[in-house]
């Protein structure tokens, strides 16, 4: 029965649907294309092993997938987080190296630099919303926040990002 049920789910379609969402969530969260690819692969490898548990609940699978992605991102950020005080983060964002200058050309890199000024929670919510393309309700379920709180955080975060964007040359 389990085998038959598995056949009913088009995992290929699920893969096509979910891959860009997870990938973009991680791009927004990490701000680095190659790391985002590697972390996306790691997320899918973990999720694919247990996907049959969700053969009757694809919404549950999506939530689970993003939970794995969140954990993978957190582990990555923790392992690569520079041990600098918060104030130093401002300087990190404005350091001028050739590499940084090149990155600055990209809008995502600019956004990444601005995102670093936001609290971790707000970064997470923004990445889930605009990278993962999740609804406020899905974000609320993933983060344990209320739906209205998610809306408030997004509003405030976008306002701050916009303000920073306009100030940057």
């Amino acid at each position, binding site marked *: 029965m389990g085998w038959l049920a598995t056949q009913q789910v088009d995992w290929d379609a699920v*893969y096509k649907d979910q*891959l*860009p969402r997870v*990938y*973009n969530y991680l*791009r*927004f969260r990490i701000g680095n294309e190659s790391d985002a*690819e590697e972390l*996306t*692969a790691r997320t*899918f*490898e973990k999720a*694919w*092993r247990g996907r049959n548990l969700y053969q009757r609940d694809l919404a549950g699978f999506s939530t689970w997938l993003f*939970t794995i992605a*969140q*954990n993978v991102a*957190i582990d990555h950020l923790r392992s690569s987080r520079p041990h600098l005080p918060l104030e130093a983060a401002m300087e990190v964002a404005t350091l001028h190296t050739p590499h940084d200058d090149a990155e600055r050309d990209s*809008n*995502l890199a600019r*956004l990444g630099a601005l995102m670093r000024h936001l*609290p*971790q*929670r707000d970064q*997470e919510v*923004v990445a889930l*919303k*605009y*990278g993962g*393309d999740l609804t406020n309700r899905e974000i609320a379920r*993933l*983060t*344990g*926040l209320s739906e209205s709180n998610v809306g408030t955080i997004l509003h405030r975060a*976008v306002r701050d*990002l*916009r303000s920073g*964007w*306009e100030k940057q040359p």
Partner: protein
Amino acid sequence: MNDDFLRNLRRPPSATFERQLRQRLREQELHETSRRRPNWKLLTIAMLVGGTALATATYLTMDRAPWQRSPATPVTSQEHTATISQPALTARQNSSQWWGSGDDTPETATRSPSAPSTEQTKITSGARADDSSSANASSAGGARAGGAIAVPGSGTNKQPIRIAVTPDIEAIAKATLSRSGSVQSASFEADDANPALRSLCTGSAEHPEIVISSRRITKDELKACNEPWVGGLLEATLGHIAVVITGAQTGSPMELSRDAVLRAVLKRIPSAEDPSRLIANPYTHWSQINGSLEDRRIEIVGPARDTPEFLVFAAALLEPACDKYPSLQALQHTDRKAYEEICFSMREDGVYNEMPLDSMFVRQRLWSDPKVIAIVDYPFYAANSADLLESMLAGAPATRESILNGSYGAARSLYFYVPRWRYERSPRVYLFVKEYLQLQGFPKRALIRPDGHTGGPQSPQPVPLKEVTLN
């Protein structure tokens, strides 16, 4: 910049990456499928070899059953032989009482030859009439010396081990057994520590064979266990359980009593005016519970009712807090179910939120709302202490030392007691104890053990069983 601008920053993953990942997933799937696919040829050979080995091992060990191989010494110094009739023995085995008809002590075991007997059974002084499994072992290998009963044709022993457990740790002790399939032959009776520990060594039928208590036995209670025929009492400290009331490191600390926590989380609470009357929880702010507390909205996250962490919370904090109210404490003895319904029912008005204690708990939930009070078990707290406030519970701080020495206010200890003669003479008790002390049934991370290990499947060593000596 607006929503559309941010959404336009999304881009599809490169085709190469998409293809490579798909390939990796396919390979992973194939690898796992091949790992799962049984090799029937190998399996058949393994079964044949295993079966032969098992048969050989069974034959070799028939001579010396595990309980006979224990280093234990006989309880009584002189062994004497008595006779016991098969009908009398069977009657006792079939009895619905906990321990047959009370033929529990060596003295009573020797008092049954009067019944009409067509088939006489030999019994040595240390053996118990109810231990039909020992009888089977002996009958299989013929009548042997060393405390075994020879009962040709006797049935298998289905009598559950009688365990008395103090009510405050009953839920966690029961959960432990229900998780461990091989020790389900136990029957639990909630009993206060005083009568349970006093009766443990008396050896009568209606009394427990094992006691799991939240306090140590006293010198006075130990006296009965030091009778020569009992041979002393064996004790194992299973470990300690504790919960911590905390919050995100960025939040502001408060000093909370157990009662304040109780009043914040329970669905129904004793009225402040008349504590014998229960009212729906009216509190929305901590300052309403106690004027000295911060005028902060009560928001609590903690374990779900069906989790091991909740059992720890219930045993270590809710129950002691509830017992401060005489009417509730009385209810514990008269109607345990009603007591649990009151003392373990959390608010459902959004003040208490259930959250699993995983890596997301601190990073997502607590960081996002530093005003939230969190209820976590001690091992989780210890592992995440860098990100959490110190314990908000009034009194000793939540440290390993304060839990082990008993000064921390939201901790409970689990002590395990078995009289030596039962352990050494009763195969069913021996086997049960051996298995139980592996702590396999305990939820991972639940126990704080003095040796630094935790209980659960990863527990490397069984808990040592030692003779109790109190000065």
